[in-house]
């Protein structure tokens, strides 16, 4: 199993380590609930060094990216971040990505479990383009600093206003004397930063952030709370909510896909067709809240009007709301084809009662609006 450069720090902080995507990562330090609360109320620090960093450069970098994502990369401004998807030719997802436009290159953040598949797909699609695909994941570490006090920590660390990136932008600056990419992004629904640095500097940066963050009640946060935080914000997790069988529109990510992009891209016909309503959806991701007392977890079967029509993709307690919440993928084909019309608008779907089977018993839930907890980005 791979270890991040912060492995020893986690052990010293008393973390319980688990396997995630081939990496040994902290799942919790003391308590998932306390760590979750720290991020919502103060600030949490996460080791996300398992995430991959791939740089794309060369004369055809823009044209190449235009071919591989549904988003219109020609409209990306310098130092801005964009949430993108990486579809196969049939519109289903290789991965979801954050793409940063830097000077003369693009930085792509990829999911750890998909790093190889992504780079393979980049290579397959690179024929005829004058580009360089540079997977630097093994050279970089990554720390996330998330929560309403994240900015206080960054300010205390001496990052001046002009070097503080605004929401969904990136700046290249020095942090504690080390070169870093400082990004105003995250996976919690809170304001915060992601810091990409060289492996050899990450321990110093981690320790100093913990030290400078002390007065703001900073807490180290593991993957357990990272999952409950992102679920409350209704942010998809590749491998759970989205995978090689879901398209962006089926995953309810249509908001991120422009209808007016002129360039052709992989899966455009299907993705755009689904977005415009010309191609019917086979399934769709919905958010739900349990009405009965049970936690519906990944894989639990979903029933509507007595028919089995889907399954839970992510489910957990929401520590912020004190309710049990989740995402589920509901089928619109076969026995469930009438759902395609009865659930096809927000007005019709929100509030609809569904049943979820947990340990062979049926429990009521209802479809709700996303996100579960309002995002508190500072824009």
């Amino acid at each position, binding site marked *: 199993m791979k270890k991040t450069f912060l492995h020893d720090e986690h052990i010293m902080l008393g973390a319980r380590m688990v396997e995630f995507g081939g990496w040994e990562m902290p799942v919790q330090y003391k308590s*998932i*609930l306390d760590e979750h609360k720290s991020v919502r109320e103060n600030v949490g620090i996460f080791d996300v060094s398992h995430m991959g960093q791939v740089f794309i450069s060369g004369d055809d970098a823009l044209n190449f990216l235009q071919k591989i994502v549904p988003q219109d990369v020609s409209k990306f401004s310098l130092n801005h971040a964009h949430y993108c998807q990486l579809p196969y030719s049939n519109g289903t997802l290789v991965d979801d990505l954050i793409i940063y436009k830097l000077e003369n290159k693009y930085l792509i953040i990829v999911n750890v479990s998909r790093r190889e598949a992504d780079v393979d797909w980049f290579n397959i699609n690179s024929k005829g383009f004058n580009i360089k695909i540079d997977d630097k994941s093994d050279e970089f570490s990554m720390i996330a600093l998330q929560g309403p006090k994240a900015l206080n920590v960054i300010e205390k660390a001496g990052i001046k206003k002009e070097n503080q990136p605004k929401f969904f932008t990136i700046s290249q600056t020095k942090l504690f004397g080390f070169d870093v990419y400082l990004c105003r992004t995250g996976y919690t629904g809170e304001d915060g930063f992601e810091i990409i640095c060289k492996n050899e500097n990450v321990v110093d940066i981690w320790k100093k952030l913990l030290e400078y963050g002390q007065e703001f009640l900073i807490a180290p946060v593991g993957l*357990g709370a990272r999952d409950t935080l992102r679920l409350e914000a209704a942010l998809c997790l590749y491998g759970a909510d989205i995978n090689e069988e879901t398209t962006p529109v089926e995953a309810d990510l249509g908001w991120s896909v422009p209808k007016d992009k002129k360039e052709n891209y992989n899966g455009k016909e299907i993705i755009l067709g689904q977005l415009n309503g010309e191609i019917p959806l086979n399934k769709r991701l919905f958010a739900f809240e349990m009405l009965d*007392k049970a936690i519906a977890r990944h894989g639990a079967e979903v029933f509507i009007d007595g028919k089995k029509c889907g399954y839970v993709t992510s489910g957990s*307690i929401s520590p912020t709301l004190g309710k*049990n919440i989740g995402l589920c993928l509901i089928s619109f084909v076969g026995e469930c084809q009438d759902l395609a019309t009865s659930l096809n608008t927000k007005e019709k779907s929100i509030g609809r009662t569904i049943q979820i089977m947990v*340990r062979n018993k049926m429990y009521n839930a209802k479809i709700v609006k996303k996100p579960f907890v309002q995002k508190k980005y500072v824009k």
Partner: protein
Amino acid sequence: MSIQPPEGILCSKSHEWVLEQGDTFKIGLTDYAVEQLGDIVFVELPELDSEFAKGEVFATIESVKAASEIYMPIGGKIVEVNEELINAPELINENVWEKGWLVKVQSDSFSQDSLGLMEYEDYKEETV
């Protein structure tokens, strides 16, 4: 959780404890099991008067991450469940030996079923 367990407690390899109290037996989870589970957020307890053999699943405990089945350390009939846990499952984390008990049972098979249960010190040695 560092509180010492009550005198006379017996523990199973599957991490439950049993304490004889008059003509019933109180059953709970060990401190080691609770530490491994982390924050407990939901408890599903059996119905009164239901009967279970030793080793049968009688309850489900859910932490933030996962659901875990809990096994009977001895056979018996459920005569009381800890209803406080329904609204306050965190009592298990906070007070595993007292307020965090799960069920009380009547057992005719205790003398047979308790073979293989360990005293706390031996359990500790075996698991940690």
